């Protein structure tokens, strides 16, 4: 276990937590969705570090990519609802 890897993990973790904070508390809903996608993307990097390439690919493609788009499709339809 190289210290470099550990530091990277730590940084990633901090970034993810920050992202998650934005995702749950951000004023703007699109921002929140993007932040959630970002958390997902960072997670997939984490999965790579944790020697799980299959999962990493899936998370990147589905968790961060597809889901985000699903969100935006719906977001585009709910006028005025986003601020409730």
């Amino acid at each position: 276990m190289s210290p470099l890897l550990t530091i990277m993990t730590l940084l990633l973790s901090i970034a993810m937590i920050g992202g998650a904070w934005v995702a749950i508390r951000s004023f703007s809903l699109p921002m929140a969705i993007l932040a959630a996608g970002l958390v997902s993307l960072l997670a997939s990097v984490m999965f790579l570090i944790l020697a799980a390439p299959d999962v990493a690919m899936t998370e990147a493609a589905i968790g961060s990519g597809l889901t985000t788009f699903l969100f935006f499709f719906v977001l585009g339809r709910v006028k005025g609802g986003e601020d409730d």
Partner: protein
Amino acid sequence: MVLIVMSTGFLLILMGLYGSLTNRNILRMIVSFTVTNTGVNLVLISVGYMPGRTAPILDETVAVSEVAQRIIDPVPQALVLTAIVIGVGVTALMLAYAYRLYETKGTLDISQFTELKW
């Protein structure tokens, strides 16, 4: 390192839950749930991780004979794969529901959908 990832995972779960239980906007709740799901996936993977080993794929670097000493546990990875896909299925469904609810009331505030109670 594993512990860092795992605590991050747990923290994400808690944050996601907090978000989904305090945001009244349905879409925000769903966003929070995706954060939670990511956290769960992180925890799952970190449980299976073993330091100094490689991915459970046989290739040039991992010979069949020494595979048991070289790879990490493949099972959690398989589980997470399934979990991710199921998660996205549920998310999609919730999103569709969110729209349906929005259509009926013109709002996404969960506290407005309380005709059924008691």
